[in-house]
């Protein structure tokens, strides 16, 4: 047990930035499916926000490889300790997969991939409506999976923080936590 008390500060900033962007994206995506009049504005945010998530996911993944991790808390069970790396892999995979599938499906449908004004991305897949059909379905299914995975992560942290009261969230708060804030008390 010699790890730091908290995640490194770049990791914490990247985490909350990503959290805000993903939470916005979940709700924007849900509203795009349900709103006729809000659709066009939401799509215009959805595309560049998705690409921003792809960029941030890359930065985060590189950062993740160089930063030391805090130790597991004693309150974390063996099952949890085995599950957490898989949760992390699932979340990272989805952070990369969702924007890439979205970019790919627009490419396959030969939609222009507009970010802002005249700034647009090149297609990453050939024009194929079959490919579009598959990727559009995958994009929708992954969105629900992503939201469910996010809820499991949120639920786990809240369970530790509010029920076990082990100060788990102190490891990720943007400010500097005192050593006594973390760990069971």
């Amino acid at each position: 047990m010699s790890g730091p008390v908290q995640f490194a500060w770049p990791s914490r900033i990247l985490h909350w930035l990503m959290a805000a962007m993903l939470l916005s994206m979940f709700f924007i995506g849900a509203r795009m499916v349900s709103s006729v009049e809000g659709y066009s504005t939401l799509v215009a945010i959805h595309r560049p926000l998705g690409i921003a998530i792809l960029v941030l996911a890359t930065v985060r993944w590189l950062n993740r490889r160089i930063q030391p991790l805090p130790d597991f808390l004693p309150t974390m069970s063996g099952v949890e300790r085995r599950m957490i790396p898989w949760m992390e892999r699932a979340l990272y995979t989805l952070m990369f997969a969702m924007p890439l599938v979205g970019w790919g499906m627009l490419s396959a449908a030969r939609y222009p991939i507009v970010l802002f004004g005249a700034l647009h991305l090149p297609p990453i897949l050939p024009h194929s409506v079959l490919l579009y059909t598959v990727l559009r379905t995958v994009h929708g299914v992954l969105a629900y999976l992503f939201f469910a995975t996010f809820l499991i992560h949120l639920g786990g942290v809240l369970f530790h923080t509010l029920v076990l009261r082990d100060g788990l969230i102190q490891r990720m708060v943007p400010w500097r936590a005192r050593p006594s804030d973390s760990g069971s008390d």
Partner: protein
Amino acid sequence: MSLAAGIVGAVALSFLYVGGWFSPHALTPSRFVDTFEQVNGMHPGFRRNHAKGVGVSGTFESNGQGASLSKAVVFERGRIPVIGRFALAGGMPYAADAVKAVRSLALEFRLPDGEEWRTGMNAIPVFAVRTPDAFRDQLVAMAQAPGKNGPDPSKVSAFLARYPETARAIGKIKAYPSAPGFAQSRYNSLNAFVLVASDGRRTPVRWSMVPEPEAASSALPSSSSETGANFLFDALAARIHRAPPKWHLVLTLGAPNDPTSDATVEWPAERRTVDVGTLTLDDVESEETSSARTVNFDPLVLPAGIEGSDDPLLSARSAAYSVSFRRRVAEPAASSAVTPADVQGRGAP
């Protein structure tokens, strides 16, 4: 425990609420397209509206006159390849051509910097409805009533009483002079857009493709008649083979108080217009072979320099076209009413 579960539950329920799970009667993009399918029946592989059509291609030659109004590349002097589609409004892909059916022209301009401009225009002076809900209600009210030759008159009158702007718009549409065919029709954007100049100046705009008067040599033979299930498309194909028809892209510039959010209302006739270039369509193809078949003519695919206005129909069209596109391209492509043989140059002298 209850607080933690409550937070997770509240986030999940908010997500479902925003996604429309608790408002089963609200108009969503899917339900909009469902209404077309309910009214017209299922026609797999076809657009849910403007189902019967042909693909065309040609060139837009911009004269540079629009460049001071909009920074869009399409208005710089030059030639731009265009593909497009002529169609008849309605969701019936095998309906016989009728003079009264609303004709449409959709275009995709492939700009040299990789941007695109897609526009769908109709040969009517105003759109019949102002809002997406009115559009859905119109589809239901005007649907073929069981056992009757046409819609239920009581439903139609109830609908028109509810949407007086539609009653006025239908009057204007009925009074609009009808051209003999696709090649002679004027196609109007109906919805308003906004031109953005390089200095940031914004101008409300509606645009039209105005046909060039026909040379006597390219006019229809007098023997041609309104017979055959595809007489309008046959005449178009014959005309394109004989002498490629041309249109002028004319921008109508709105004044500050002109309505941009109401496509049922015309702007005053004295508004300034600018002729910004000439469209020439020199090839026609059946949908079965045309690359236009897999284009979603979403009116909000716009280059920098053209933006959507506050017209609520624009977002609705974008949303509904996307659903229609997603559904139809996943279905097996059926043979078109206008076949590849129909559009060959057999009408040429």
